């Protein structure tokens, strides 16, 4: 159970704009992520940098090198911990958590994340398939399903908070011009897969005799943005509580399976990092799960023979496909399904019709931070020629923000496993499982064909 306290009733019932800005995770991801970008830009423009603070382990081959690294950079790791603890602590407090409870929990997450980050820098890590995202996930799953997660650690397990901050920071290393160039293709590819996946899940579920509200909740969970898509639709159509639990369980189950399977298959087929990232972005069900898979695959670049492209290309292609191609449309899906549910489906005793304002209310606001971060850094970089960019902007601005992004993602990957307890899965019988799995099969195959065949050249060029 989470340690975050309930929203005070008055605030929960009448949410003003101010309340929204202070009590929603998306906005805190923007304040923290974009705040870091703005400070980093300001320092770079005045000849400084945040690179001392944005410390990251370097490559090593012997255990003694790790000890030496930690000894040399101990003050930086402590300072970075203080920075994260301060920013995340403020955000968590605003969301209702007590700082005194968040701090020890986050300290443990930071310490384990440092070990995972170090593991990823071992020169034999790829040889043994020890990619940090996968190890973080496996370790978290092992702990939560064996010895259990201690109560004091619960307050720090905020997957979405960390992943959204990481995505905002990711914007700083993705040129805005690239987003504009690749965005339409990402939207087109995602639209094809989303419509097909939703259709398969919805009509299979209906054929199996399942309630249409459950069918729609499962459909958007598989087609749009995983658990977030499922709950958005469930609220819009007025699904039963048990139906929401079923949809969440199935999404989490398949998302975790595909975190391991997609990179393995892509590796066996020697897909380039950008093409694999696009496939994962098309076929994974949730941002955090997909980023774990994409970052793991990016880690193969330069280490596994036959895999071309840069490590970042996998994460960048994933983000475009998933965030721009799929996530931002959730409000539209919820709005349309709400109208259909109200006008066409059987009555439930509750009128759940909504207005077009629902599209904005459900819009994943952190995406604005991602786009703004990209626009700011692109604008700054445009003032330098390529040689100056590589000499000044890259080491002083972009690389440190990339390091902070990896930290935020690692916190999230660890928390995915730690919050997943298999005994909490509610499948609700064979029929929902069959319907959702049919969608998974179509989603994965269609995503593969579009990424590796239809739009293969485009994604390959994107990676270059």
């Amino acid at each position: 159970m989470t340690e975050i306290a309930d929203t005070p009733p008055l605030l929960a019932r009448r949410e003003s704009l101010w309340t929204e800005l202070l009590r929603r995770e998306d906005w805190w991801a923007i304040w923290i992520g974009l705040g870091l970008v703005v400070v980093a830009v300001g320092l770079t423009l005045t000849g400084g940098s945040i690179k001392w603070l944005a410390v990251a382990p370097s490559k090593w081959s012997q255990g003694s090198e790790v000890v030496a690294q930690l000894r040399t950079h101990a003050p930086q790791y402590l300072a970075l911990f203080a920075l994260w603890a301060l920013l995340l602590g403020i955000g968590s407090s605003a969301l209702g958590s007590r700082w005194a409870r968040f701090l020890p929990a986050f300290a443990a997450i930071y310490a384990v994340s440092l070990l995972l980050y170090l593991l990823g820098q071992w020169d034999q890590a790829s040889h043994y398939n020890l990619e940090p995202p996968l190890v973080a996930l496996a370790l978290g799953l092992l702990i939560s399903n064996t010895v259990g997660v201690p109560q004091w650690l619960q307050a720090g397990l905020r997957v979405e908070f960390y992943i959204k901050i990481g995505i905002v920071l990711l914007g700083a290393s993705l040129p805005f011009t690239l987003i504009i160039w690749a965005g339409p293709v990402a939207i087109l590819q995602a639209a094809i897969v989303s419509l097909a996946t939703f259709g398969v899940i919805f009509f299979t579920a209906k054929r199996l005799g399942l309630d249409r509200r459950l069918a729609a909740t499962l459909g958007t969970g598989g087609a749009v943005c995983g658990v977030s898509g499922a709950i958005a639709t469930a609220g819009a159509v007025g699904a039963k509580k048990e139906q929401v639990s079923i949809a969440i369980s199935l999404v989490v189950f398949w998302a975790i399976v595909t975190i391991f399977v997609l990179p393995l298959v892509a590796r066996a087929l020697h897909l380039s990092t950008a093409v694999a990232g696009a496939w994962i972005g098309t076929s994974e069900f949730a941002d955090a799960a997909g980023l774990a898979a994409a970052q793991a695959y990016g880690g193969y670049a330069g280490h596994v023979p036959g895999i071309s492209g840069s490590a970042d290309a996998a994460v960048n292609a994933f983000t475009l496909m998933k965030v721009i191609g799929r996530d931002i449309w959730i409000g539209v899906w919820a709005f349309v399904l709400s109208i259909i549910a109200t006008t066409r489906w059987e009555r439930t005793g509750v009128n759940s019709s909504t207005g077009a304002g629902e599209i904005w209310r459900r819009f994943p606001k952190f995406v604005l931070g991602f786009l703004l971060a990209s626009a700011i850094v692109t604008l700054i970089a445009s003032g330098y020629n390529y040689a100056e960019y590589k000499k000044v902007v890259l080491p002083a601005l972009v690389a440190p923000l990339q390091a902070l992004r990896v930290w935020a993602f690692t916190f999230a990957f660890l928390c995915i496993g730690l919050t997943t307890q298999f005994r909490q899965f509610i499948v609700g019988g064979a029929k929902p499982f069959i319907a959702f799995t049919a969608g998974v099969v179509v989603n994965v195959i269609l995503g593969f064909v579009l990424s590796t065949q239809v739009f293969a050249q485009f994604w390959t060029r994107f990676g270059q």
Partner: protein
Amino acid sequence: MSAPAGSAARSECGNCQHFEQGAAQLERELPLLRTLSSAYSSVRARDGLCRQHERYLSASALCAQHAPA
């Protein structure tokens, strides 16, 4: 026209004593929600759980069993 609109707003699920929309409580009742999403997300808007109908609803939904909070 403003009176009916205000009246409708007051009878929305978001203002009903059967409606639970506290984020922490929602994460307790839907435990895997926070694994790959969050009750603190923008996408949840003001949705919550109705104790009367055992449904997950938008705060703007309406029903005949409305009980003012």
